[in-house]
């Protein structure tokens, strides 16, 4: 009965008598991650691919929050090429899109990778991909394919073929054997490469805009020192080992300056170091703690955390290359704790840690409306960092007393995606800029 009444109401609502042709209105629908099937890539007879590309793609897409890849047991068939697909079978699955691919050895440690994405319901090819690479680059190929899928279906640039830097603390509870590792890995947390190992704390890794260098703080000399290290060569240089605190290095968008927190003048203040000359430019001058500076994408202002108002809040200050800094303005007003802010790539939002009922959570602040939106439901989030496409935020949080990495989609209301659970405590992640091909 209810259904009939509902249908009648729908009928009256939806039939537009103005035009001769029937027009039907469809309202509502539902939002969800795009169901997509990525079939395991075919490989030569009875052989095992050195890298499960499909699995990497599935994880990437899943982590983005915008896709829900089918599980292997949900795949009705495992075609490797677009022309051998039985679409009727796929239509009965949840998938809307179908990716098929193949890896073919074409020489010593050389592989030709092909991939096609197809729209199951229209039968149309969305794109095809072909590349020949070394074995060690198969993972990267997987991420590039993920980026392609993302770009085609989301209409935004993908950020899977990027890196993350983070700090791992091993044996955190055993002070004697505790070790700190500065590492980089693919954006999915795999293919980890250790940059620095130390018995003393390593903190605040920061990417140079070209993605080739990292700045970080190391306590290996039993005091905080800011280093810059070239990833390819491992060559590093000290850029700040002033008396007191040397922390929170952040590269300017042009790569020529680094903002940092120094207490060489007695109190934590924000400075800008001009890398070419080594000249320091003091940005803040307040008796409160000013720390955790971050650049606006246009390079003309910084945001930083300051307790000059009594509680930690985010302030913004205008900067220019040679002149004096402007007067800092408080931009967060919600709650009594906001810290560790970073600009989104488009400069329209800030991502920060916001304390809410005793929980420290990742939140985003709209720079225009000053509206704050909490993105996570965890207890102790830290170091949120935007993906270069601004779609995801990577952060560290605590799970069973251990630091892990999670990513959350900035727009939307779905659960954060956990990255690979590494051994040890993971903290202070930093997402790299886009990589050059």
């Amino acid at each position, binding site marked *: 009965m209810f259904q009939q009444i509902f249908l*009648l109401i*729908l009928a009256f609502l939806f039939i537009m008598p103005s035009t001769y042709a029937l027009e039907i209105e469809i*309202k509502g*629908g*539902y*939002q969800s991650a795009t169901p997509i099937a990525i079939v395991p890539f075919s490989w030569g007879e009875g052989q095992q691919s050195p890298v499960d590309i499909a699995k990497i793609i599935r994880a990437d897409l899943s982590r983005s929050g915008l896709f829900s890849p089918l599980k292997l047991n949900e795949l009705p068939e495992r075609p490797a090429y677009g022309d051998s697909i039985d679409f009727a079978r796929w239509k009965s699955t949840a998938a809307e899109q179908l990716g098929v691919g193949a890896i073919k050895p074409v020489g010593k440690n050389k592989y030709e990778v092909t991939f096609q994405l197809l729209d199951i319901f229209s039968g149309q090819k969305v794109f095809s991909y072909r590349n020949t690479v070394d074995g060690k680059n198969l993972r990267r190929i997987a991420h590039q394919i993920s980026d392609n899928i993302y770009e085609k279906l989301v209409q935004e640039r993908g950020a899977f073929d990027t890196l993350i830097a983070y700090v791992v603390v091993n044996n955190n509870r055993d002070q004697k054997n505790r070790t700190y590792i500065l590492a980089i890995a693919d954006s999915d947390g795999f293919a980890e490469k250790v940059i620095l190992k130390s018995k003393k704390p390593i903190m605040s890794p920061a990417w140079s805009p070209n993605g080739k260098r990292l700045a970080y703080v190391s306590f290996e000399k039993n005091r905080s020192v800011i280093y810059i290290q070239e990833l390819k060569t491992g060559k590093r240089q000290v850029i700040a080992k002033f008396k007191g605190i040397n922390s929170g290095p952040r590269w300017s968008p042009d790569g020529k300056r680094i903002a940092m927190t120094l207490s060489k003048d007695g109190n934590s203040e924000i400075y800008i170091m001009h890398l070419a000359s080594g000249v320091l430019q003091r940005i803040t001058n307040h008796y409160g703690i000013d720390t955790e500076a971050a650049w606006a994408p246009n390079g003309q202002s910084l945001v930083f955390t300051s307790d000059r108002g009594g509680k930690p809040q985010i302030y913004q200050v205008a900067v220019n290359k040679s002149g004096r800094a402007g007067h800092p303005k408080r931009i967060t007003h919600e709650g009594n704790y906001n810290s560790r802010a970073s600009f989104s790539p488009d400069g329209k939002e800030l991502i920060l840690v916001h304390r809410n009922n005793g929980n420290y959570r990742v939140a985003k602040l709209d720079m225009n409306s000053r509206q704050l939106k909490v993105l996570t439901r965890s207890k102790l989030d830290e170091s949120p960092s935007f993906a270069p496409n601004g779609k995801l935020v990577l952060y560290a949080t605590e799970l069973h007393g251990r630091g892990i990495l999670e990513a959350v989609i900035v727009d*939307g209301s779905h659960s954060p995606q956990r990255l690979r659970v590494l051994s040890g405590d993971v903290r202070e992640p930093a997402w790299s800029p886009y990589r050059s091909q």
Partner: protein
Amino acid sequence: MLDWIKSNGRGFSIAVALHVVFIGALLFNWEWDKPKRIVLEQGDVIQVNSIDANSYDAEIKKIAEKKRSDERLKQQRKQQQVKKKQQEKKRKAAAKKKKQEAARLKKEKLKQQQLKKKALKEKQLKDDAEKKEALAKKQAVEKAKKEALAKKAADAKKTAEAKKKAEQDKKRQEAKRKQQVEAEKKRQAEIKRQQKRDREEWLRKSKGIVNKYAALISRKIEQNWRQPLDVASDLSCRVNIKLQPTGKVISVRVLESSGSLSFDRSVETAVRKASPLPVPEDRELFEQFRDLTLFFSPEQEPGKN
């Protein structure tokens, strides 16, 4: 009588001569039957030469001569008489002939007259007949002419009538045909009108069904309409879809893009996912669903988040 002789002396002489000849001929004819005797006939002119008495011979000769001359005379006389008789006879015959001729002529004349008369009569009769015939002929000709004319007229009339009739027939047929066409047209129009009426009536009746199916389609697509997570909720999209009578979606074409390709894609996928769409089984009702415009808008009713 004397006067008559005096005035007609010659005739009288001839008549006397003729009488003498006639009487003499009568006597002569008689004597001829007896011995021959020479008789001088008064009235005859005889030339007599004196006999030379000198010579017997001469005389005999004279006598023989005379005898011969007499003989000759007699002969001549005889011949003359014969001639006269012959002449008389001839005359008589001539007279008779004349008489006969006259009679004949008379008769002939009479006959001719009769003939003429008869001929006249005949001619008249003939003429009359001819006249009559001519008249008759003329009449006949006239009649024939008249008849011919009449026939001609009749024929003309007939032809005209036939023509007229043909024309009339044609006209009638044309009219009939027109009428039929008109009637057919009318009939068709009526059929169409009736069909339209039926259709309208049917449509009115079927509107509920159409509405029901529109709602079913809307719901089925809505249930299949999964939107991407990262699209704004104020988007909308208008598409045209074409259906098979089975409800199977043949094509989806974006009429008004939302501006977001992924949103448009979600709409297209929703329609294709929902295929086959519920459509009325009735072919005519289905026609309203063959070509549809769909308007997609994710905005929820107020209060539903």
